[in-house]
């Protein structure tokens, strides 16, 4: 187990803008099937860190390795080809296409048929598209124009699209932002279930501590660009440094009390 390279290994990731160190020497790793939460207050460097993993941004130094292969500085589309699916903080979908067509685009790309001029796209991998939509509970919406969907459904669609290339790793940037509390729980449960079944590693950033503590196997905490804590939810919650960072927001207290009361 320890000899195989981890699914994702991040070593000494560093990025600065002018004199500001957005991210400084961040290292962590992620195993297959593990759900890892990246948290930290606003401006901690979560988004910068995230963008360097998915190819949106290039690090000044440090490395990102996916199953031992160096992906540092590669383009988002190249990283996707290596088996990384992603969802966006603000959903990005193909608004004028139907829900099924959205998934089919990803399937076409996965099947390397992007320059196929004569095939029939409406029938392209229709069964697989249907299965993916069923998986995220969107089976009944396949023929709806994507532009008509409610926000929570768009998030679920993004998840289906992200799963289309049978990813080994899912990167989810604030997957539950802008959703109602009920929908948040549903979406994260679904994600966790799929990840465990298919042994997909999940890295997500999140502001909602209830979501983080309920679903993450492990948590890493960023503050001012450096990693200040890493461990199980219980360990992170008990970490005085993390508490100090979060005290102003009061979220940890609340989460801790609730859990304590129910135990």
């Amino acid at each position, binding site marked *: 187990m320890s000899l195989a390279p981890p699914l994702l290994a991040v070593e000494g990731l560093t990025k600065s803008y002018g004199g500001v160190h957005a991210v400084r020497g961040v290292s962590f790793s992620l195993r297959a099937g593990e759900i890892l939460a990246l948290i930290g207050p606003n401006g901690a460097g979560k988004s910068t860190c995230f963008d360097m993993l998915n190819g949106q941004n290039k690090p000044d130094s440090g490395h990102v390795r996916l199953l031992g292969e160096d992906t540092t500085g590669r383009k988002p589309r190249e990283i996707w080809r290596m088996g990384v699916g992603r969802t*966006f903080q603000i959903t990005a979908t193909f*608004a004028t*296409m139907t829900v099924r*067509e959205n998934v089919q*685009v990803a399937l076409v790309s996965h099947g390397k048929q*992007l320059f196929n*001029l004569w095939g029939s*796209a409406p029938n392209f991998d229709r069964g697989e598209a249907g299965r993916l939509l069923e998986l995220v509970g969107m089976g009944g919406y396949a023929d709806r124009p994507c*532009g008509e969907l409610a926000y929570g459904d768009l998030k679920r669609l993004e998840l289906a*699209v992200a799963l289309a290339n049978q990813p080994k790793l899912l990167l989810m940037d604030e997957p539950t932002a802008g959703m109602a509390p009920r929908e948040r729980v549903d979406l994260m449960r679904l994600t966790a279930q799929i990840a465990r079944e298919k042994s997909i590693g999940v890295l997500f950033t999140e502001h909602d501590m209830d979501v983080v503590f309920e679903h993450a196997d492990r948590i890493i905490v960023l503050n001012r660009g450096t990693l200040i804590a890493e461990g199980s939810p219980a360990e992170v919650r008990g970490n005085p440094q993390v508490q100090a960072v979060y005290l102003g927001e009061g979220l940890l207290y609340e989460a801790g009390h609730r859990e304590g009361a129910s135990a």
Partner: protein
Amino acid sequence: MQHQPGPPMAFYVVQFLTGLASAASLFLVASGLSIIFGVTRIVNFAHGAFYMIGAYIAFTLTERLSGTFGFWGGIVIAALAVAVIGVIVEMVLLRRIYHAPELFQLLATFGLTLMVEDLVVLIWGPDDLVGRRAPGFKGAIDFFGQNIPSYDLFLIVLSPVVLGILWLLFQRTRWGVLVRAATQDRDMVAALGVNQKWLFTSVFAVGVFLAALGGALQIPRDAVHHAMDLRIIVEVFVVVVIGGLGSIIGAFVAAVLVSELNAFGILIFPKISIILVFLVMAAVLIVRPWGLFGRPEAPARKTPGLTVNPWRPLTSNERLAALATLVIAATLPLFAGNYALTVGSEIAISVIFAVSLHFLMSVGGLASFGHAAYFGLGAYGVAFLAKMAGLPMIVCLLLGPLLGCMGAAVFGFFAVQLSGVYFAMLTLAFAQIVWSIAFQWVSVTGGDNGILGVWPASWAASPSHFYWLSLGIAALVTIALRAMVFSPFGYALRATRDSVLRSEAVGINAKRIQWTAFVIAGTTAGIGGALFAYLKGSVFPDNLGISLSVDALVMVLLGGVETVSGAVIGAIVYKALNIWLVSQTDLSKLVLGGFIVLIVVVFPKGIVGMLEMLAQRRRKASPPGSPLLAKPIESAE
């Protein structure tokens, strides 16, 4: 601009100064365009028209008013008068379309340009008008044996002065602060309680004033004529693409750069001086796609366009109906005369042209304002092969469009680096460059005289045979492009149109997909052009001119931009109307321009879009299983 005796150094200095003087008008117009774009996000195609009206009004005033004061007063009054016209246009037309898609804004202001071209001829006549020389700047200054007109020196000084005044206006006045704020975030400025309407109107007035001043100041240098609007607007587009849209200093630097390139380009490539400007523009675009002084635009907040009707392939009944229509169309030679058949062939060729642009514009979201370049290249391709190589018609028809394909491959590569209004401006500039080459390179293209005697082979020579040939190719092209819309490639292309971010995140190389679409569209347009060359028996620079590019845009728009086959209907209706209109009136541009403005303002979905909407409404009005009830249940799921 021939070599003259005298020290070569002095000659180059004079050439340099001439370039600087030409930059003045260019800078005034470009800065006006940039200021307007910065705040309203409208690329005002009519800016060239305001420039032209400025020149015409100034001509009249300077002829009527005498003396030094009369001349300079006339110039300023002309610019002010045009600014007032601009205010009226802004209040009546633009306020209605600030929230419309970019394409509609460009088209509406282009419609205005067309109207102005005819109005100007109506008022001032078609002949070139040579104006007065500026009092106090009539002579020339001797520079080591070379003459420099003193008016040129005045213009050279003027541009930096205007630049300084604009800088003071934007940095030192309350109005300027508001304009700069609105350029950054106009919603925020509105939220702060600034009256946006009047801010927009005043900005538009200032921009138009600058354009008109640029036109008025040209009188002593150049004749006033009714085609000067398009010439300046294309140069201005090149300037703002190089300098960066929205940047005044960028407009200044790029205006100087472009003018100098023109001044020296004539010495290096006397026949095709425009090449130099193109090379520089291409280089800038590769290094800095947003221009030398521009900033990358944040991706626009995505509006899903006018409708979100999903596209679907035709049902088998609809296929039968389309086939039946085609069969009926094929019976035309049984009862129609030769003239009707020639018109029919021309309409069929228009369909090819329109569906090719539709593929790029509606499917790919890339509104090309210079699509005629590839149509015309196809026509020239045929002409070269037929006249110079003497190849048979069938070979020419197959190989001729390859010239369109190659043109699209080269220009498309650069064009797809940009999107939105930049893409529109760049494609227009490319088309204009191709036009200039066809016009200037007389030894190869015959220049204005074109290439004559491109006649079809005997098997296709009769009007009915040629009609069947055109109809058959139009049908094949339409079917092929429609099949492509529903091919995996078509899905990928639509994906890049809807969201480049998401496309890249599912492994799609968006630019390569768009480039491929550009080449497909260009080649298809080239097929249309190839047929057109045989239909007319000749090829002229007009076959790749701006007005033809706009014809294609209007055909797509009229049919419905957001439909799958609107372009076919749009092409048939528009071309038939156009041929009829030209035979009925001398003011076809005025009518056409008014027509474009009208479609954009009251009829933006086009014919097919309207029909689809009506059909949908009927379906909703008489529900078989009451979807009104079904809806709440669905959404509660």
